[in-house]
């Protein structure tokens, strides 16, 4: 657990350092995540202990949104004044984006010539089964 904490905080710190030092408009935590991803790829090893311990943190991800989320109470007048604009943006915007995104990737997937080596027969039959039960 200790090693996991040191690793995660180190990359979080590096991300914040990069963001501050290079003055780039990208969140420090996101930079930290990218650096950490680069480290994992370079290392290219299934570090079970690290993955499991970090998994505990991710399992309770919603907990960490609460302090920021409760800040909603600061803006009741915005929600009241612009309720319709917000609702249209979130409901219509989301449904249209979901439809467009799903349609686009399905077109791309269907157009693609299946590479002979990439998919094993098992994964093919698996996706076939999924299509049957949900299509």
């Amino acid at each position, binding site marked *: 657990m200790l090693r996991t904490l040191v690793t*995660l*905080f180190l990359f*979080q710190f590096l991300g914040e350092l990069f963001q501050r030092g290079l003055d780039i*408009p*990208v*969140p*420090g*935590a*996101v930079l930290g*995540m*990218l650096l*950490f*991803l680069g480290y*994992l790829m370079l290392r290219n090893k299934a570090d079970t202990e*690290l993955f499991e311990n*970090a998994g505990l*943190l*991710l399992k309770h*991800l*919603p*907990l*960490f*949104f*609460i*302090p*920021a*989320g*409760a*800040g*909603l109470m*600061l*803006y009741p007048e915005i929600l009241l004044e*612009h309720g319709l*604009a*917000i609702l*249209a*943006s*979130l*409901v219509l*915007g*989301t*449904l249209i*984006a*979901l*439809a*467009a*995104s*799903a*349609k*686009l*990737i399905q077109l*791309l*997937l269907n157009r*693609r010539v299946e590479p002979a080596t990439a998919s094993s027969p098992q994964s093919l039959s698996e*996706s076939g089964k*999924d*299509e049957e*039960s*949900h*299509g």
Partner: protein
Amino acid sequence: MAELLPLSTFGILLTLLAYVAGLWLYRRSNYSAFLQPVITGVTLIMLVLWLADIPYETYFESASVIHTLLGTATVALAIPLYQHLQKIRENWRPLLVTLLFSGIFAAATAVLFAWLLGADEKLLLSLAPKSITTPFAIAVSEIIGGYPALSAAFVIFTGMVAAVGANPIFRLLKITHPIAQGTSLGMIGHGIGTARAFEISPQCGAFSALSMGLMGVYTSLYLPWLLHLLR
């Protein structure tokens, strides 16, 4: 109650208890998209602060450790992304094209509808990161000058809309490919969409988790830069 807040443990304990209550209710409701733990948690915190007449800032300072850990958990999101790298390699072309399109389209539609109905600039900035997972959205909103708390709420609401709307949309548009279902749910509905995708099938869920990560990274890289250049 307000005099307990200088104790830094009070805000932490309050947040943990609100989360535990939220988790309990979520399980009791059989994982309803409308009763995510964060919704109950945030509501309970706001209720307690309002009833006890505690300023939000006082609470936030007292619970700042938990907010710091949000960044730590964001860093940890590299792990599921790393574990899904093989799937990215096998499908990189359709994934990349869809990602480039969806990242811009999701933000653009969100901003467009609100702008047409008269939202001001700061609200538009808070709406733009609505399709990316909450830790990224809070960070992006902070950096582009939106209201981070509003963005967090918008993100969660977006996820619920995507989770509830997925089935009708997939049926209407004949979206039958599990990779297409998973990818679009993850890109537009982030974590809540991903939970929905795992109910469809494990393959659908895996692609959704992967897409959520890609969308979060992509949007938090391009959106602040784009706005930086436009200003």
